[in-house]
């Protein structure tokens, strides 16, 4: 029996709308152009976490070429649930045709909820109880108008279907580590519309501490070093942090470049590192080793090592790549953005 889980299909979805960071800065009096990204993806007025998840899941199923009825688990990692009480997973599972013999749940761990779903799916399929398990990380992230987060809080997500490693899987997971502490760097209390954050506390003691520890532990456990990886993907709250953490850990720009999307789409929270991972799989070749390290405020980091398999080359077309989706965009102004994101309240 194989002891490794593989990915048989994946898909991502980036909404078509973009608002430029300088457009947001202009509204709030930041005329100096000191903005953390170039532009961010914005969900349209008829889009939400569920529609984003369904789009990504449909691409994943097409790539996997499986009967969705065989998907035994649909887990969604998010902090943008349309309902406070009512699972998003049921809507997605119904929409993709996975119901009724399916387990679903919505996971919450800020921006690493998607990789929490990875952990559950990997163990599900390895236990043999479920053949295919789908993990989704997606968000329509909210930033308080005028807050620093408003520049980056974006929409998007990605879905991955796990099963036992075989010659049909396009990549397999050879190791995983979860590093968690109680570090309150970012939070949203019940009944509050926007999250709070602790400014620079979200940096060194939060993002960097947890990612560095998860990745170092993973590499130590597996006897790997940065140069053993062809690519690396880190959670991307802005354009600067993933580059800095890569450098601190000894990874190069070439290794992170394919998955570094935050300058162009912003931070789609639980979808952030997963969309970056999907974009990296879009260009990876058989045998390549990929590091995936998420970060979730609160706080924790999941680090995974994946190895790309031969069939990936057959699984690329005709599904649009993440970069294709990023390239298809419509710019909106700030007033349209606040309308789309429900920031105008009577």
């Amino acid at each position, binding site marked *: 029996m194989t002891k490794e889980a593989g990915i048989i299909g994946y898909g991502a979805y980036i909404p078509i709308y973009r608002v430029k960071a300088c457009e947001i800065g202009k509204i709030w009096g930041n005329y*100096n152009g000191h903005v953390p990204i170039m532009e961010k993806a914005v969900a349209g007025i008829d889009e939400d976490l569920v529609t984003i998840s369904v789009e990504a899941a449909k691409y994943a199923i097409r790539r996997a070429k499986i009967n969705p009825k065989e998907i035994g688990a649909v887990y969604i990692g998010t902090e943008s649930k349309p309902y406070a009480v009512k699972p998003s997973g049921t809507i997605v599972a119904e929409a993709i045709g996975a119901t009724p013999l399916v387990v679903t749940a919505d996971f919450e761990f800020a921006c690493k909820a998607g990789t929490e779903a990875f952990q559950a799916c990997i163990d599900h399929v390895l236990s043999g109880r479920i053949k295919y398990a789908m993990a989704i990380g997606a968000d329509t992230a909210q930033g308080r108008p005028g807050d620093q987060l408003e520049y980056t809080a974006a929409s998007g997500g990605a879905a991955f279907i796990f099963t036992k490693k075989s010659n049909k899987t396009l990549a397999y997971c050879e190791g995983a580590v979860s590093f968690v502490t109680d570090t309150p760097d970012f939070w949203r209390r019940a009944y509050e519309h926007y999250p709070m954050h602790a400014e620079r506390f979200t940096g060194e003691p939060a993002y960097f501490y947890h990612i560095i520890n998860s990745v170092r532990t993973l590499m130590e456990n597996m006897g790997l070093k940065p140069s053993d990886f062809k690519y690396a993907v880190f959670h991307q709250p802005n354009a600067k942090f993933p580059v800095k953490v890569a450098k601190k850990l000894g990874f190069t720009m070439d290794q992170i470049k394919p998955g570094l999307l935050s300058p162009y789409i912003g931070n789609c929270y639980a979808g952030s590192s997963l969309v970056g991972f999907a974009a990296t799989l879009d260009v990876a070749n058989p045998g390549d080793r990929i590091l995936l390290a998420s970060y979730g405020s609160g706080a924790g980091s999941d680090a995974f090592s994946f190895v790309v398999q031969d069939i990936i080359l057959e699984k690329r077309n005709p599904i649009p790549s993440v970069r294709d989706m990023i390239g298809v965009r419509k710019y909106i102004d700030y007033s349209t953005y606040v309308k789309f994101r429900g920031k105008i309240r009577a």
Partner: protein
Amino acid sequence: MRKVAVIAIGYTKVKEHWGLSIRDLFTEAAIMALNEVTIDRVDALYVGNMSSGYCQHQEHLGALMADYIGLKSPPAVKIEAAGASGGMALREGIQAVASGLHDFVVVGGVEKMSDVLTPDITYAMAMAADQEYEAFIGVTFTALNAMIKRAYQHKFGVSDELIATLPVHCHDMASKNPYAQYPFKITIEQVLSSPFVAEPLRLLECSSPADGAAILILCPLEKAKKFTDTPIEIAGIGAATDTIALYQRDDFTTFKATIEAANMAYKMAHIKPEEVDVAEIHDSFSITGVISLEDLGFFKKGTAAKAISEGEIAPGGKIAVNTFGGLKARGHPVGATGVYQVVEVVKQLRGEAGKNQVDDAETGLTQNIGGVGGTVTVYIFRRID
């Protein structure tokens, strides 16, 4: 009145110490100082701090710190004078030793600003201004200093480029200081392209919130040689106040309290400004430092920025200033700043300043400001050979 000496120093790195509490910081610095000398008792403790009540909901720092650094029930008290808390705490310590009341006194400064977010620390700092007549309208501390810069530039016609040379100098110095908050160089272009915090003050012209603690141990000069080979005499003492509110000043381009405090200190030490080898001045904002260099008598009014651009405050220049980075780049843990300044002058006069050492430094000066010049302390220190 007995002469007083500094016989030991201690300090923490200045940074955002996410993992240390205010008592941890103070204790770390105090242990460093207490390990420098062998004394069998501490007669009194003075703790300079501005905002522990607001930031930590903790007052009564005297007893707290005396307890946590392991002292045996000495009288201990917190001294608060906004940004000059450290400088005024030192004054209390000096008075206690000089008067003969105490022989061994610990003077510390501590501030832990990273426990609260920017809006709160902005509000806390505005408490240094006049709440009833000034701060209540919403003016921030940075905004008050921005008005000072505007008035100064209007009066003397000094450019942004020239004023930007002070933070550039301070970062240059801090780049060789291992305990500095920002140990890297910056350029004039970076200063001038950084965003406005309060126009015309830009981000890289302003000190930023920091955590840190610094400690001095004082004793009578006559006994100092028993405890250290390099005692540093506190040769001049000056302190003065001015109107707390800026609007009440006749002239925004000078800090009257600096001039008065400096005159007292120079007179007591029997020296003139040109005899000072190293100075740590209060550059909480670029303009504050520029004005201070003039008020202390190092340069004529309206000329300090040009002098900085010509290398006059770099080691080897007319006077070496802020050789560890000053408030801008060493960092400005508010209530500790006045004590850090003394630590740095002591290091220079002892010859322990490492890469920042000024050759043959014998006389040093510190200037510590509270508010927008509402309180100022000036001290002069002398090496004892």
